[in-house]
């Protein structure tokens, strides 16, 4: 090979490298990825042999976030592609490194959560415990923490139950912040663990948001509980208007009497409207029956 062709080869290689960097450069929130760029991203993700000697061009948080978000948009199962499978396993192994959990909690390494999500049977508990350190005292619920908590609940529901009961319901020390409690109530209820006693605990939470979150989860998952009526009734003496409002919307008709004595103005108006609706539907049904 002549010197000139070596130089040309080097120039091309450097430009390819720069092209890859640009292709997977961070997309700022609210901006749409150019169609041509999106198409090429998908092409390269599907056929990563282009990357095999040039992986360093995307080996950073921003670019890897773009790789995983593009794969998600295009519904590409990265884990089924051997090149990415190896990378995903390497990325999740690096989650155990010091300092990584803070980065993940901050949302700077969402690709790591996406990577862990792709591994069946991934053990979320260590990561959950690590990010809880940062989240528990924080009143802003980070999306990364929500994702990790969901993974934890799905993969190890027994540990989640233990965590919620020991750290929240029956905690003798400080409890986590109210958005964390709200999320934990939701996950706990969705797993079918709610009892009459823990329903009372959720009803008595010091935060209206947390209490509503637990109740909403129950309303959406009544099929998990054979005693759902009894559980719903634990909330009827709540001190929070939004809780009573939620009950007015979701209680079956035969249980509505349990919230009729509510002192809350808006909840009362809501209840009146619901009863009027029920009445109107009944009248309409009767009319249809009598008309034939």
């Amino acid at each position, binding site marked *: 090979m002549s010197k000139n062709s070596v*130089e*040309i080869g080097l*120039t*091309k290689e*450097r*430009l*390819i*490298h*720069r*092209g*890859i960097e*640009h*292709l997977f450069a961070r997309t700022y929130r609210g901006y749409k990825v150019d169609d041509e760029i999106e*198409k*090429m991203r*998908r*092409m*390269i993700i*599907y*056929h990563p*042999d*282009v990357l*095999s*000697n040039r992986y360093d061009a995307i080996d950073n948080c921003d670019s890897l976030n773009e790789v995983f978000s593009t794969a998600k948009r*295009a519904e*590409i199962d990265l884990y089924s592609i051997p090149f990415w499978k190896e990378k995903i396993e390497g990325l999740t192994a690096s989650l155990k490194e010091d300092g990584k959990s803070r980065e993940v909690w901050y949302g700077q390494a969402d690709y790591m959560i996406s990577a862990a999500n792709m591994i069946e049977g991934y053990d979320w508990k260590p990561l959950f415990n690590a990010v809880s350190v940062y989240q528990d005292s924080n009143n802003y619920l980070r999306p990364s923490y929500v994702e990790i908590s969901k993974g934890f609940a799905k993969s190890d529901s027994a540990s989640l139950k233990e965590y919620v009961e020991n750290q929240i319901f029956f905690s003798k020390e400080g409890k986590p912040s109210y958005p964390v409690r709200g999320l934990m109530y939701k996950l706990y209820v969705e797993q079918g663990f709610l009892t009459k006693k823990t329903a009372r605990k959720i009803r008595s939470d010091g935060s209206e948001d947390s209490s509503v979150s637990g109740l909403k989860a129950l309303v959406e998952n009544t099929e998990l509980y054979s005693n759902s009526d009894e559980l719903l009734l634990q909330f009827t003496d709540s001190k929070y208007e939004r809780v009573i409002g939620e009950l007015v919307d979701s209680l079956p008709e035969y249980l509505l009497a349990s919230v009729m004595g509510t002192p809350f103005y808006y909840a009362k108006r809501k209840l009146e409207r619901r009863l009027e609706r029920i009445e109107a539907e009944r009248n309409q049904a009767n009319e249809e029956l009598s008309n034939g």
Partner: protein
Amino acid sequence: MSAVENVPLEIVEEVEVMSKEEVLNFLIAIGVNTCNRSYDTDHKELKSSFLEMSLKDIAPTWDNLDDAVRIAVLNAHLDEFKAWVEGK
């Protein structure tokens, strides 16, 4: 890198098929496009190296080059371009 050149790469959902060479040429083109807008000395040098390549080497990237880079290519190869226009 694949041992076999010109392996057809297929995009799912779309009928379009691109060879590996086409993908690499696309990457070269967007690489030089971004260098054209950069003030970084390395990037300027990289763009110059690209412009010094023969038109035969540049041609496969032409469709994806920005207009400003195309003009720079024409300026860098003005003599060849004039000769071609004049049919010499």
